């Protein structure tokens, strides 16, 4: 008696109708069921389902979810008898287990649907309770909002992990830096202590000893030989004290600067020039910047300078010694120049020069030994300062 209704996407042909025919279903203003030509019966703003709805690979339309979390279905049925009394039953497969019934109002809302595949089914009946046997069925895929997608969860998880890892590595780095600073401070403290001990105890004791030897030598005026021996011992003791001073200078963290290096070079030059009765000329910048030098750098530089000075003393027969300190273009240059015989490479001094080159290489610098502008020899020690400034 009741004709089955053919409800499919290509609606259009149907014969006599007892139950009303579902004409169109709209989900969130998108015509999802029905013919676009009939959209006027619902809402003039409806978009063309075929045109606007994306489809999954199984050809299921995808409904984009909006932020309101509410999916609205509007529907209408074609009834020629008492359309106001047309009854509808709907159910959403996957959400509803039973049919829900609505009369009159032709809109249904679904809130908080999880993204996924659903099928919305709708049947209608006349007021005489004659129901469609074939529901108007619409399968759709509710598109996940971006924060509901799997990749978003993965992204969040990855972000959390990344943040945790970053914080951890940052903490490790900080800890490492702190440890390094503490270590350096401890090292500096230790060096200062050693310097102080050497200075206060040994240095002063050696000076005391030298003076004591002088006193004994003076009391022992009678026997000239012993007196001379004692004087020699006093001299040796003073030489020891002088070596001690160099050691203290290398060890003392308060001397880790170019200013202190300049002091050291001047004293050393003065000592050598005085001994050989040479004129000493110093060419130092008027204002030496407070640039730090590591103890290793100072140590190697001081040894090279000492070696250069001894070479001048032994080989050059010079009358003038020039010590130059230049700081330019992030480079420290120390020059030891003499006006002596000039430089002749022999196997003996060759090894000394090689040693100096190696020393300078070990601290990232370079060494050169060239004939001076007015005869004599000029030894140049070059040290780049840029890395030093960075590591500070």
């Amino acid at each position, binding site marked *: 008696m009741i004709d089955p209704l053919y409800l499919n996407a290509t609606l259009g042909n149907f014969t006599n109708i007892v139950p009303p025919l579902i004409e169109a279903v709209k989900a969130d203003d998108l015509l999802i069921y029905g013919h676009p030509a009939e959209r006027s019966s619902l809402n003039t703003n409806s978009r063309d389902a075929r045109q606007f709805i994306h489809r999954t690979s199984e050809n299921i339309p995808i409904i984009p979810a909006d932020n309101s979390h509410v999916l609205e279905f509007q529907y209408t049925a074609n009834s020629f008898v008492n359309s106001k009394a047309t009854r509808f039953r709907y159910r959403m497969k996957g959400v509803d287990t039973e049919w829900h019934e609505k009369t009159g109002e032709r809109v249904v809302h679904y809130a908080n649907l999880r993204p996924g595949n659903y099928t919305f089914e709708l049947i209608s009946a006349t007021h005489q309770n004659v129901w469609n046997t074939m529901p108007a069925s619409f399968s759709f895929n509710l598109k996940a909002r971006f924060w509901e997608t799997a990749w978003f969860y993965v992204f969040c998880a990855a972000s959390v992990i990344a943040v945790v890892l970053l914080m951890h590595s940052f903490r490790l780095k900080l800890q490492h830096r702190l440890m390094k600073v503490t270590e350096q401070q401890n090292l500096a403290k230790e060096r200062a202590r050693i310097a102080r001990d050497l200075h206060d105890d040994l*240095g002063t*004791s050696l000076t005391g000893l030298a*003076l004591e030897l002088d006193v004994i030598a003076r009391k022992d005026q009678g026997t000239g030989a012993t007196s001379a021996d004692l004087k020699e011992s006093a001299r040796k003791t003073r030489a020891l004290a002088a070596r001690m001073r160099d050691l203290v200078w290398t060890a003392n963290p*308060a001397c880790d600067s170019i200013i202190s290096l300049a002091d050291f070079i001047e004293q050393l030059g003065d000592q050598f020039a005085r001994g050989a009765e040479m004129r000493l000329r110093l060419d130092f910048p*008027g204002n030496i910047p407070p640039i730090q030098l590591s103890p290793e750098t100072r140590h190697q530089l001081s040894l090279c300078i000492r070696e250069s000075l001894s070479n001048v003393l032994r080989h050059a027969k010079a009358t003038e010694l020039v010590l130059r300190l230049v700081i330019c273009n992030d480079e420290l240059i120390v020059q030891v120049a003499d006006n002596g015989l000039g430089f002749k490479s022999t196997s003996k001094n060759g090894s000394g020069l090689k040693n100096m080159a190696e020393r300078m290489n070990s601290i990232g610098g370079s060494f050169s030994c060239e004939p001076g502008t007015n005869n004599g020899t000029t030894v140049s020690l070059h040290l780049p300062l840029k890395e030093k400034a960075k590591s500070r």
Partner: protein
Amino acid sequence: MNIRVAIVEDDKSVRENLCVLINSKEGFSCVASCPSTEDACARLPQLSPDVVLMDIHLPGKSGIACVTKLRPMLPKTQIIMLTIEEDSEQVFDSMKAGATGYLVKHSSLEEILEAIADVHSGGAPMSSQIARKVVTTFRKPIEEESTAVKLSAREEAVLVLLAKGYRSKEVAKDLGIGLGTVNTYIRNIYEKLHVRSRAEAVARFIQR
């Protein structure tokens, strides 16, 4: 007339042996040997020695503090600092406090006596590092008018040569003046340095 020397040094062996040696040399007499700043400040003003040998590193109040205290009480006394390592910073501070020379402790006795005699007879040693520091100090702009002590052109010329490593004799030859004149210049420079740094200290104190 002997040069009357006082020693301020905490190490007993250095202090006593130095005293014995100075006494044993003709023309020198050791009038006091003090182990500390406190002792020196208590005894030296009455003794008024010609020359004081002062250790920079004294336990408690340093030798520099001791110079600052003694200097106004002993205007005619020359103070020579004794150091183990020649730290130009500390030596310079001593000069500002009023010292007129320094010696490395392990200098030979002859060098020590020579330095004492030199300073006593009006000599004024100045190393090139110190000369450079003095030049820099006087070229700094002056904040307070009261500290406006300036170097004369001649004094500056002496300083420039000293900074280049010239010894006093070489400076005299180069400038065509006598050694005594050079020494006078250097003495004046020391005095100006002292006056200026004292004025600066006062200015700092007032500003606070």
